[in-house]
């Protein structure tokens, strides 16, 4: 069915550029007789250049099956339908496009085809897919290990080795740690894939494998494809590798804060295996996970220990406070009896004592001592009550508290000829009773420690700080405090003056500090000797707007 026409337009006349196109081009007539084809095309297909022009395409395709894609595509093209398909031909893959071939009037005169060889691209894609799949597998394995939440290090290591062995398809995966003296490594866990079981306890003396341990210090991974000959791992050959049939090793040091503390070992049994960069990187990540697991377990241990210590401290502190309270409470009773019966005795012996001044003096000293002890115990109890007998916090208007305190101190203020000046005070959250005590003590001190001949001027100020705290200052013009005592004065029973100068138990400021601390605040003093003192209190200011409703 060849025609002279088709022969005339055959390939020899094709322009040279046509030969350069990296694709196969062909044209057929209405009877699917090949009329043109690009040079590379048929050579590529294994035919000689000119032999095919004039031949029926179906013969060349060796198929007349109407469902065979190339046959179907050419038949459809004759009916005006374009098609695209992929086909494998002689071991290669082609992306093929077949169109109707129309003359200038648009009438279908035959078919025109173009095919690109995509074999290489396909292979690249395939290997990419494989690689991606593997990477994904590694990532998934790492993710599931990273998510593993077991504080038990042994369980964590078992999970890690098993997952590692299954992911990298390695016969033996083990984790080793250096002993304390760092002269040997001990196998913490060895997972055996064939048995799906674990072993542990082997010990290797570092001295016997100097090259291996040297390599370990300086490498991120030791990937020994041929472990028996590898300069880093050959030392294991006779005793270990050959007897166990191990051919390839992939070992990764486990580092904790820069120091090698152990090793993750992969041992491959069978024909030598090449460790890919991905596999090496996976193994390195596993080692990182091991060090994370160790850190987590250490941290957990430390946390537990810390919590225990804290609880213990809180408990013993509470016990101590309770003890202080009970002890001072119980000391009170017999002391009160001593005082009361001393009073009785004094009444009974009154006449006798009047005649014996020495006995009377002893008696008075006895009573003085007992009274003083009573005062100390009472103050101690007050301090203990700050925590043991605390009331829940409520909104407290410090203006009202200070008014009440000043009214309590009215007599003393009058007697001293001084003044207490209070600026507007905030409302804070606290224990009203304790806050009353606090200001009673501070203002009381300000009046008490005045300079002779100078009437006490006391000022109470407050200001809101940016930090959400309120600063309250109690400023006096009294005798002042030497800087070396600024901190000391808050300690229990700390006194700076003789009782003849200023009376007191030395518990007042301890009480103040305790109260301020219970309110989440701090108290400090700054002062100049002979010029007055300023006590500063910092307490949290409640964020909620203060209630304005007043009765």
């Amino acid at each position, binding site marked *: 069915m060849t025609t002279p026409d088709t022969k005339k337009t055959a390939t020899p006349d094709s322009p040279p550029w046509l030969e350069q196109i990296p694709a196969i081009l062909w044209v057929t007539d209405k009877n699917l007789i090949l009329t043109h084809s690009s040079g590379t095309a048929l050579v590529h297909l294994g035919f000689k250049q000119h032999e095919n022009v004039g031949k029926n395409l179906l013969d060349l395709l060796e198929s007349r099956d109407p469902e065979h894609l190339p046959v179907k595509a050419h038949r459809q093209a004759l009916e005006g339908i374009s098609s695209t398909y992929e086909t494998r031909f002689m071991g290669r893959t082609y992306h093929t496009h077949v169109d109707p071939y129309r003359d200038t009037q648009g009438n279908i005169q035959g078919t025109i085809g173009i095919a690109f060889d995509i074999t290489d691209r396909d292979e690249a894609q395939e290997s990419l897919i494989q690689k991606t799949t593997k990477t994904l597998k590694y990532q998934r394995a790492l993710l599931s290990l990273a998510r593993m939440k077991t504080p038990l290090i042994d369980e964590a290591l078992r999970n890690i080795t098993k997952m590692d062995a299954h992911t990298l398809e390695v016969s033996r995966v083990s984790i080793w740690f250096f002993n304390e003296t760092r002269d040997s490594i001990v196998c913490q866990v060895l997972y055996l894939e064939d048995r799906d079981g674990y072993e542990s306890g082997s010990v290797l003396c570092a001295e016997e494998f100097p090259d291996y341990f040297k390599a370990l210090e300086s490498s991120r991974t030791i990937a020994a494809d041929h472990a028996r000959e590898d300069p880093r791992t050959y030392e294991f050959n006779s005793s270990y590798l050959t007897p166990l049939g191990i051919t390839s090793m992939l070992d990764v040091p486990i580092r904790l804060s820069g120091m090698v503390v152990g090793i993750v070992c992969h041992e491959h049994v069978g024909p030598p295996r090449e460790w890919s960069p991905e596999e090496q990187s996976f193994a390195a990540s596993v080692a990182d996970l091991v060090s994370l697991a160790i850190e987590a377990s250490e941290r957990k241990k430390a946390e537990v220990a810390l919590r225990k210590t804290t609880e213990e401290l809180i408990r013993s502190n509470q016990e101590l406070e309770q003890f202080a309270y009970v002890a001072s409470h119980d000391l009170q009773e017999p002391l009160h*009896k001593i005082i009361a019966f001393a*009073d009785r005795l004094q009444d009974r012996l009154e006449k006798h004592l009047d005649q014996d001044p020495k006995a009377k003096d002893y008696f008075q000293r006895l009573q003085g001592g007992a009274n003083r002890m009573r005062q100390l115990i009472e103050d101690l109890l007050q301090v203990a009550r700050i925590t043991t007998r605390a009331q829940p916090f409520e909104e407290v208007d410090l203006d009202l508290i200070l008014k009440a305190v000043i009214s309590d101190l009215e007599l003393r203020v009058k007697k001293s000829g001084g003044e207490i000046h209070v600026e507007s005070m905030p409302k804070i959250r606290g224990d009203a009773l304790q806050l009353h005590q606090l200001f009673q003590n501070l203002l009381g001190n300000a009046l008490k420690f005045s300079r002779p001949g100078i009437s006490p001027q006391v000022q109470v100020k407050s200001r809101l700080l940016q930090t959400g705290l309120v600063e309250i200052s109690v400023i006096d013009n009294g005798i002042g405090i030497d800087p070396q005592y600024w901190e000391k004065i808050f300690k229990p029973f700390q006194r700076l003056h003789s009782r003849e100068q200023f009376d007191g138990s030395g518990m007042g400021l301890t009480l103040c500090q305790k109260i301020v601390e219970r309110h989440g605040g701090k108290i400090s003093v700054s002062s100049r000797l002979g010029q007055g003192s300023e006590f500063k209190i910092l307490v949290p200011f409640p964020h909620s707007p203060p209630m304005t409703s007043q009765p």
Partner: protein
Amino acid sequence: MNQNGNTLILVAEDDDDHFLLTREAMEVAQLHCRMDRVRDGVELMDYLRRQGKFAGLSGNPLPSLIFLDLNMPKKDGREVMGEIKEQSPFNRIPLLAFSTSLAQEDVERGYALGLNSFFRKPTHFSEWVAMMKLIKSYWLETAVLP
């Protein structure tokens, strides 16, 4: 005015020293009246109910006042307070509680139960006397008792 002699005060106090101080302070304060003593809460309830070793008191009039020490063995004042105040006819006897220290919760609970007065046990004997004088003038000379 000297009708104190007929008044009976029940003192619930385990501590001999405190009992002695109470008694002597009452004497000095000239609070002259009859006095019975029990040493713990169990005895106190037995006394009021005229049972146990107090069965013999059956038929005698109940005390006009009760002095109750808060810290006593067996059944302490805190427990016994509620029992007395819940039960007729004991609940109409004025009940005065005494303690060396005053815990806020004891005070609040006491008054809530119907306690009539709460006193801190004084230190100095003169204070004991002053307290007894006040009790005498208020409960025995001013207030009307049932």
